[in-house]
């Protein structure tokens, strides 16, 4: 069995297992290449009929190409699409320039997700997170419990033994499941190519720039690149030294530093 097929089969197994264990689940779709890959794997797992909703958390600041892509796929693939928006804060004019980017992300993303989880009584969320992403995420497991404060009890991760994934324990309010944890960035691109998956054109170079990762317009900056095909992107990644989220305005560690300084009144 070749490498990509092995990765694919493992993911499908995890997705089916998650559905069995939790039933009330949903998949978080950021419309990026990783979560679109996850979406495709869900389609494979359920033979084209995904039995749970696909959630898009819309901060209203996303690129227009993303909205177009989202709506096209939802129609083509017959998705049960739920759009999560923090209407209250958006009406109040919330944005990255109103206060801090941290607050904006918190309200428009994190809280919007919390609201939708509560509304639909979801027990678990499928996410397209990979292990090789920057720093702290390297510690995530396939099944990762979160308590209702969205904190992550890092110290007490349950042992994952021989694919026996965690089933629900009372205190934990919802689980996060990461079926593509074992895919690297290169694996995702190879898989996208192999399967002929559609992805948002922003990933490809236009006028010497492209986006390595896509999110909200005000906080995403493109990188210099001439890569217009997947092969060229792969080549670029192999030789490049900047991590995937170099384009994003948030530097995770600086954010934590800021949080800690703030908590003691130093900011």
């Amino acid at each position, binding site marked *: 069995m070749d490498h990509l097929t092995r990765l694919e089969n493992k993911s499908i197994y995890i997705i089916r297992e998650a559905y069995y264990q939790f039933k009330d689940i949903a998949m978080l779709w950021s419309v990026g290449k990783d979560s679109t890959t996850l979406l495709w794997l869900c389609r494979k*797992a359920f033979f084209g009929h995904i039995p749970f909703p696909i959630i898009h958390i819309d901060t209203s600041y996303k690129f227009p190409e993303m909205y177009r892509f989202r709506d096209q796929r939802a129609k083509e693939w017959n998705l049960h699409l739920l759009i999560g928006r923090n209407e209250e804060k958006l009406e109040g004019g919330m944005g990255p320039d109103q206060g801090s980017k941290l607050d904006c992300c918190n309200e428009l993303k994190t809280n919007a997700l919390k609201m939708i989880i509560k509304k639909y009584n979801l027990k678990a969320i499928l996410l397209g997170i990979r292990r090789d992403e920057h720093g702290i995420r*390297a*510690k995530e497991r396939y099944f990762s419990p979160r308590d209702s404060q969205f904190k992550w009890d890092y110290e007490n991760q349950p042992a994952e033994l021989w694919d026996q994934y965690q089933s629900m324990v009372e205190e934990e309010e919802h689980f996060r499941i990461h079926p593509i944890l074992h895919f690297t960035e290169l*694996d995702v691109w190879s898989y996208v190519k192999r399967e002929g998956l559609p992805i948002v054109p922003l990933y490809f170079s236009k006028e010497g720039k492209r986006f390595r990762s896509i999110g909200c317009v005000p906080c995403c900056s493109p990188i210099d690149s001439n890569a217009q095909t*997947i092969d060229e992107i*792969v080549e670029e990644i192999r030789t490049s030294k900047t991590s995937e989220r170099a384009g994003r305005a948030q530097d995770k560690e600086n954010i934590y530093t800021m949080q800690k300084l703030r908590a003691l009144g130093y900011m």
Partner: protein
Amino acid sequence: MGKEERALPIVIVGHVDHGKSTLIGRLLYDTDCLPPDKYSEIQKSSEMLGRIVEFAFVMDCLEEERSRGITIDTTQTFFRTSKRRYVIIDAPGHKEFLKNMITGTSQAEAALLIIDAFEGIRDQTKRHAYILGMLGLKQICVVLNKIDLVDYSEDKFLELKTDITEFLNKLNVRPTFVLPISAIHGDNVANPSEKLSWFDGPTVLQALDTFHDLKIEEKPLRFPVQDSYQIDGKKILVGRIESGHLTKGESLYLLPGKKKVVVKSIQKFLEEGVNMAHFEESVGICLEGRHRVKRGQMLTADLSSTISDKIKANIFWMAPMGYRAGETLLFRCVTQEVRCQIEKIYRKFDPASMELTEKDASSIQSAEVADILIQLDKKVVVDPFNEIPEMGRFVLEREGRPVAGGIIL
């Protein structure tokens, strides 16, 4: 564009001070998987401290690299030989990390067991060797590190080799290689060394290159049913082929009831006319006729499985709180989840000393190993671990969390 070839996952275990970091650094450096500018930085700072280049610094520098955004996974480190790529799965060597270590090891397909030639076998060494054996790792290379501290002595090496081989054999672990090395000086890791001219075995890299990464498919079919979907009027059973393969039209047994069934079709999204499904594939199957099938049942090609509600097993207790006689646990083996109790604890022993600690015990404590008899609420389908490992491994859970890992005897 080349596909990312599969890296052979290996784990390096042994006592924390026996040179694991240095060995990893050396493996990376000697295979040119360490960026050159990193090396000169390490060299400079080491010289400042008046010491020879310490490859343990490599790990610190890799951490820095990661912080600047270069994609290096802290839990997985890659290196390559001319033959293939390897990925080192992080497995720390401290007592409290046994839980994590098992998780690390269980994904590995080969192991390097590192022992300080000067210090010799420690408790941690024994404990890890035991777990390697228990988890079915057959491709094991023992490296006797810091051979420079015993003056590259052949006699000392042979003495240690005999000791460790004897100990490992008691655990039913037969290492494929036992090699003398000095990670810090680079002797016999990637390149043979003049100082070890009396040694006629391979280097560490050569030894690793002989390990296999493919599991054979010639075993009988085991397809545990994971779930059942109703799609487009069809009832599709989904699951992963844990051993063997299956063909369209094949006649199979549905266990534990031993009912005979026929495979009507193999379902794969967007693929028509699939004739065969292979080992490790997650597929869908439709059976001829109507049958009541649910998760936990098994499709097999023959009746060689063990079908019983009483199983003899060997377990390693991981949770800090031990087991008390009469407690109900959950037995999980592939997709089977059945309540059970430990009916009898035949023997308990401390994996470090391999000493029998108790016969006919009534409890099991953290980090203990025991031979037990499990009584299940209903029959399950399993196989002995040394025949079909995927069907011979299980987990015991208490209140939703794994407390022990075990193998079926």
